[in-house]
Every structure is written in structure tokens, then in C-alpha cells.
């Protein structure tokens, strides 16, 4: 049913997200796992610190994508890693559009306090996604 799946992760609740994605696959599928290096920093952040943050996030993203690939090391699954820089919600929607995926899988489950203080990427994606979305209720 779903031949091309876009999977988003920031490194949390990977097991739940992998499990639900595997449940979607019947036969063969292409799974694209996207990690977004968020490059925005507040005004007055020192430039060198910003560069350091981006380097750290890039290294973290590589580790996360590597871990995710292990979960999809199964016959019939073509797994692809994708790392982009920018605003997470915008980049997820853009990747889904460019890659013409059938479904986006992402975690959700922030508390009300967290949603107010940190914002919710999944809520933003829901409003502008070009395809079906599976929101996996995570441990929170």
C-alpha cells in the first residue's frame, strides 16, 4: 500500500517509530529517513558557537541515521538516509514533496507544557503535508 515512506526522527523514540513503520510495509518499500539539522539560532549567538552547534548536530544526526538504518536492515526494504539543514517542519514537507512519498511517519506526544514552550513540528507538518501522515504516539 505504501511504497515510499518518509521517516522523520530527532533521535527520540526510535524503536516505536521503527516498529510502526515496519507495520506499514507489505512486501517491498523504499524508506527515506530524514534528519534535519536546525540551523536557526537566536540573535547575539556567537558565530563560532553557532558553527560548533551545527557541527555537533550534524555528527548527532549521522549517528541517529546510522542507528535507524539498523532497524530497517530487512529484505525488501530499500533504506536511504537524508540529512538537510533548515527549519524541521519546512524541510520535512519539502522532502515529502520532492521525493513524492506516499506517507510521512513521525513521532508525537509532547506534553501541553512542552508544546507551548517548544512548539510542535508534527502540528506544523500536518497543516501542509502533501500526503498521508502517520503520527506515532510516543512514550510521553
Amino acid at each position, binding site marked *: 500500500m505504501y511504497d515510499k515512506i518518509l521517516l522523520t526522527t*530527532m*533521535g527520540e523514540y526510535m524503536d516505536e517509530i521503527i516498529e510502526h513503520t515496519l507495520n506499514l510495509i507489505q512486501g517491498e518499500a523504499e524508506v527515506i529517513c530524514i534528519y534535519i539539522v*536546525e540551523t536557526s*539560532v*537566536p*540573535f*547575539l*549567538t*556567537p*558565530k*563560532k*558557537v553557532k558553527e*560548533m*552547534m551545527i557541527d*555537533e*548536530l*550534524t*555528527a*548527532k544526526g*549521522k549517528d541517529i*541515521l*546510522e542507528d535507524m538504518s539498523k532497524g530497517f536492515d530487512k529484505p525488501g526494504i530499500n533504506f*536511504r*538516509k*537524508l*540529512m*538537510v*539543514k533548515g527549519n524541521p517542519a519546512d524541510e520535512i514537507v519539502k522532502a515529502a514533496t520532492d521525493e513524492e512519498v506516499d506517507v510521512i511517519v513521525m513521532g508525537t506526544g509532547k506534553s501541553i*507544557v*512542552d508544546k507551548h*514552550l*517548544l512548539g510542535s513540528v508534527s502540528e506544523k507538518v500536518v497543516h501542509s503535508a502533501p500526503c498521508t501522515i502517520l503520527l506515532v504516539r510516543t512514550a510521553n
Partner: protein
Amino acid sequence: MLEIIALVGLLIISLIIVIKSADVFVDNLVEIGGALGISQIILGVTASAIGTSLPEFGSAVIASLSGSTELGVGTVIGSNIWNIAGILGISAVVAGSIRTGSEGLTRDWLMTLGTGLILLFFMLFGDITWTAAVVMIAAYCFYLWLLIKAQKKHSDEDGQEKEKESQNIDETPEKLEKNSEKTINKKSIAFVIVGFVGLVIGCRLMVYSGVELASIAGIPAMIMGLFTLAIGTSIPELVVTLSSAMKGLHDLSIGTVLGSNTFNILIGIGVPALFMSVPVERLSLTFDAPVMIFVTILLFVLVRKSNMKLNRVGGIILLATYIVYAFLRIFVLT
């Protein structure tokens, strides 16, 4: 009234000048250092340690040179209390939790605590003189050496891992721009000078507006340093700590605060003390410095109790501690 508005405006503008100048100064100094062949590890560690703390250092030095030594000491101690209780408190409340590794926490926390105790020890003898300054600067060199050693180990491990795994990740192209040969360019030298001049002028304006505001409002310069200038000069720490906590870069978050506190005392007080005795107010010895050490210990207890993370409750406890401290210092003990 107009004078107060003008001075507050000057204070805000000077703060922005100081912070941006410090950024330009450090950034271009690192460029020149890289071109001169200094290791990227040494440059990276030093730049991140100094980058966010230069405003406190600059204001402490300028305050001392312009005869407002208590303002400088107040800015340093006030910044350190605000960094832990205020900034980490706010970051933990907003981000939900800040995790930390035990190795990094132990090293940076022990250094911050040791630094506070060194300061308290020298304060017991009255003014902080050049002998204390030499010990402080030597202690900071030791800390930098520890940081560089840890970073080298980390980089070696990273390098080995990268060799093992073959990366086939689609990335955005700008990532590949690094590693080009560098030479010293005149622009970098010019920007270092511009940054330095901006830092000096900005700090001078900031100290002037701080002293004038204190005198008009009838509050001691020490209080101005402990709160207004301390919080103002800690804006870089606030933005770095908060945004890195929100992005999940937890070590950078706590590391920035602890590293900054160590720098503030050892260099922020150590360097001015090399040139002139830094007078110690009685309340600094009996209240401010002990509170600074108390919040350092409180942070460690909160992190250890919550399984190596500072959670939202811990953040609220730290913020409440800061509010109690500010209330007592401004309204009860002045």
C-alpha cells in the same frame, strides 16, 4: 526622567556593541590563529570558552581601570550566580530537561567549584592582589589544558569511528565547503582591531551608564554590577545555553555555563588583579560568594538526584533560589 531613559538606552546599546564586538573579535582571532597553524582543537576550545565570557571580562577590566572596581567584581560574581540559577533554571524549565555526561560534569563542575573556593579563599585575606591573580591565571591555563586534552581524545575517537563506517548520506552541499587552505587576510586583522575597539568603547559606555544609573537611582554600584550588568553581559550565555538545550545539545548547554563561570572568576577577576588590587566588599565575602558556591553545589545535587539531568523541577528550584537571593540582596542586606 529623560536622563534615566537616555542612560537605559545607552546601557542597552552598549550591551549590544559589547556582545557583537566580542563575537567579531573572537571569530577573526580564530581565523588568524588557524592561518598561523594553531590547532583547530585549541582554537575551538579557547574560542568557545572565551567567546561568551568576553563581555563580563571586558566590563570587569574597564570597570577596574576606570576606578569602579566593585562594579567589576559585582558583575563577575553576579554573572556566575545568574548563569547557574537563572540561565540553567530558565533553560531546564523551557527545554524540559538538560542531560549531562558524568565525565564532563565532574570535570567542569569540580573546576567551577574549585574556582569559587579559590576566590573565597583569597577574599578572606582582604583585597585580591597580584599573587592571587597569578594563581588564578595559572589555574585557568590548567583548565584549558584539561579541556584541550579531553577534546583531543574526543576527536581521535570520532576520527576512528568515521573511518570504520562508510557514510552514504545525502547532504546539503554547503557542508562540503570546509578544509580549504587559509591565509591571514587583512580583513581578519582589521576586524580583530574593530572588535577590540568596539569591546573597549562598548564596555566603557556600559560601565559609565551603569555607574550613572546607580548614582541617580541611589543604589550601590555593587548592586548594579550584581544584577543589571551581570544579567546583561550574560546574554550570550543565555542564548547559547537555551538554544542548545532546546536542540538537545545538552553537554554544550551545561558546559557553556560552567566554563563561563570558571573564566569569569579566574580571568575576569584574575587579570584586573594583576594590575591593581581588587577590593573586596564585606557582603561579597559573607553573602555573594557563598551564594555562588551554594548554587554550584545545588546544581550538582539536582543533576545527580535526577539521574544526570537537570529537569523542570530542578530548573524551578534554581530560579526560586535566584529570586530569593535577589530579594535578600536588594531589599534586605543592602
